[in-house]
């Protein structure tokens, strides 16, 4: 407790607006520098980028097909395990590197009618339309502004000490776990924006349409993952069973009779079918949950680790474009990892770059990261980053601590001082 108090005092001294030391002119110059990065990348976009997203999509779809085929044999343990792993990966890629990024309009420059933010739909509970509003617009415009960025704790969690405590937050460690497992449903409900509904900011017709959208998405996911594919798996197992039983019974009528005749064959086939159905349904449920947990982890690490700054509405009044860039930069945190990690996380490990340029193709974030770091160094700005385990640990610690009243703003790493000083 003593340590926390000591930390709190130093924290309160240290935490001041990351842009306080910059003049209007410096902010303007900063905005020009960031604009220049975006313009440079935009001018370069071409075949290489198109080939990347097309092959990513093709690979993801092949992986999905392979996983579904494996799960036709779901009652065999190795097929079930391999199928679940492949399906989880397919779902993760579909949501993160493909869906999230296509819906951001990152690939709209190709003018492709399919790979386009206006026509894309994804395998999750949120409708594309609701997501584009709550995420692309609300979250990416009002990033980390207390009370305005509804992704700051998703309105059910206290993840910043400046959020007022309420007894309900005592349960937040528990519903944190539930949110982790059922993240897509949490996000879909969050998109509805209950506060706006309560305050009457949404017409009844709009609420009705949005709820119908979620119900529609829920229905099609349930039919696909818990009815149609498991049914195919069951039918495949039953057919195989019937065929082998008939053959094993021998060609002779006597052999078949000994094994219980046609009824026996059917009974046995039905039993294998049922077993296969439930094995496939379980595999699909696991894949959905694995995808949810992964998405939760990556997204929570984007804005809730200790290094990130939050802003009060007063602080951002009359914000300049330079100020907006600084807020994006200071409000996000990167996750360090291998290239495979970055693809699986939809390149959201480059959360800082993504927030500066949400509509640049994700593959370009790694390329511009050194330029962004260099700007941070020159302007004395933070560049938040850390390994996955550390970032996730900080987030979980905050969720536990802030379930209780009080809590203090965590110390910030301060201005970025180059690779050699990167460690906190």
């Amino acid at each position, binding site marked *: 407790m003593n340590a926390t108090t000591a930390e709190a005092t130093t924290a309160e001294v240290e935490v001041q607006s990351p842009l306080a030391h910059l003049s209007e002119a410096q902010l303007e110059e900063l905005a020009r520098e960031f*604009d220049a990065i975006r*313009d440079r990348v935009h001018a370069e*976009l*071409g*075949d*290489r*980028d*198109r*080939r990347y997203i097309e092959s990513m999509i*093709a690979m993801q*779809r*092949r992986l999905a*097909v392979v996983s*579904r085929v494996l799960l036709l044999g779901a009652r065999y343990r190795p097929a079930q395990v391999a199928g679940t792993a492949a399906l989880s990966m397919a779902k993760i890629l579909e949501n993160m590197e493909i869906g999230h990024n296509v819906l*951001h*309009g990152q690939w*709209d*420059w*190709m*003018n*492709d*009618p*399919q790979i*386009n*933010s*206006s*026509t894309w*739909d*994804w*395998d999750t509970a949120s409708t594309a339309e609701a997501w*584009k*509003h709550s995420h*692309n*617009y609300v979250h*990416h*415009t009002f990033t980390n502004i207390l009370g305005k960025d509804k992704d700051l704790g998703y309105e059910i969690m206290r993840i910043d000490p400046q959020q007022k405590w309420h007894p309900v937050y005592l349960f937040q460690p528990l519903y944190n776990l539930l949110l982790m497992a059922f993240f897509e449903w949490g996000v879909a409900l969050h998109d509805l924006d209950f506060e706006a509904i309560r305050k009457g900011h949404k017409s009844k017709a709009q609420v009705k349409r949005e709820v119908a959208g979620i119900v529609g*998405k829920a229905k*099609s*996911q349930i*039919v*696909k993952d818990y009815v*149609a*594919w498991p049914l*195919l798996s069951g039918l495949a197992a039953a057919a195989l069973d019937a065929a082998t039983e008939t053959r094993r019974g021998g060609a002779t009528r006597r052999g078949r009779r000994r094994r219980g005749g046609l009824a026996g064959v059917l009974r046995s086939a039905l039993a294998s079918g049922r077993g296969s159905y439930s094995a496939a349904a379980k595999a699909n449920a696991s894949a959905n949950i694995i995808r949810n947990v992964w998405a939760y982890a990556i997204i929570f690490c984007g804005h809730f680790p200790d290094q990130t700054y939050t802003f009060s509405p007063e602080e951002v009044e009359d914000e300049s*474009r330079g100020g*907006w860039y600084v807020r994006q930069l200071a409000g996000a945190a990167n996750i360090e990892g291998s290239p495979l990690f970055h693809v699986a996380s939809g390149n959201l490990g480059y959360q800082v770059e993504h927030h500066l*340029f*949400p*509509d640049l193709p994700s593959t370009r974030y790694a390329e511009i990261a050194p330029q962004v770091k260099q700007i941070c160094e020159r302007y004395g700005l933070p560049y938040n980053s850390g390994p996955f385990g550390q970032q996730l640990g900080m987030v979980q610690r905050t969720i536990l601590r802030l379930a209780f009243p009080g809590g203090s703003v965590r110390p910030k790493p301060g201005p970025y001082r180059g690779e050699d000083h990167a460690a906190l």
Partner: protein
Amino acid sequence: MAERGATPQVPALRRRALRAVRSLFTPLLPDDYLELINPLWSTRELRGRIERIDRETPDAVTVLIRPGFEWTGHRPGQYLRIGVVVDGVHHWRAYSLTSEPERPDGCISITPKLVETGVVSPYLVRRARPGDVVRLGGVEGTFVLPDPPPEKALFISAGSGITPIMSMLRSLHRGDAVGDVVHIHSARDEEGVIFAEILREIDSSQPGYRLHLQLTGRQGRLAPGNLDELCPDWRQRQAFVSGPAAMLDAMSDLWQAEGDRELLQMERFQPVIGGEPGEGEGGAVRFAKSGVEARCDSGTPILVGGEEAGATLPFGCRMGICHTCVGKLCNGKVRDLRTGKVHGSEGEMIRTCVNAPEGPIEIAL
């Protein structure tokens, strides 16, 4: 939504089968997976594979395309919107179909001529290869051969203006319905005559077809005054004229003055663009879906101008990042207020919050 190809003529049984298994693939379609095997199997939009590319002149080629599904047909003289990917970006252009609809192999052809400053024609003329897949849009155009064909016809073409007339000629030739046709075609020199070979073949095999080649490098341009000599009965013929604007204007004046304007049909490839858009001049915006008309000066985004005129438009960040406000550009050009760059082609998705019109535009919002 970006422009896509025409809806293909898919056999009903196949459509039903695909619909039946849809729930296995949601939110995608079976199509999304089948396209991985063969992009021509898309039932969402008609695509075609380039079968052959034949050089007609040093700067024009005929591209023979096999549509993925049965060709719904066209009327000789019509044009087709065709979508190709160049440097990662989809571009759409209209080209006259140069094939006759009755081709037994079901293929279609276009004959683009190189425009050095363009994007699509350099791709088709220089880089496209047999096997490449293109998107096939709708067939349009009112410059068509009447059915039944006229007994006496006069075709006047110049340069690549011959393309729609070629489809008409081929159709007549295949149906042995040439009747009485006079064809006056202008090109700079022998080498520049597109379809020289087939024109000669029709000339020699169809007694009713008479070709006059006007080589403008040597003989000068075709003047309206030449017509009385080249085709004395031009006033009695159903005339089809296709070529540069100056020629069309001259012929139109001639028919107006001396002939029967009803008997003259013309193909203008370049739509008449009103006014000369200058540096950052703004312009009028027509919102196609709501019917609202607005006027934006050079610094006013389309979104703001529209809202001021009373349109309800989608918007989000209002700073060019979230793509909530995008609308399809139907025609005209826009200026990116952030870069000052003028851009925009038909079917392009435009962010209304950071673009101002550059001259009059229409947008599908």
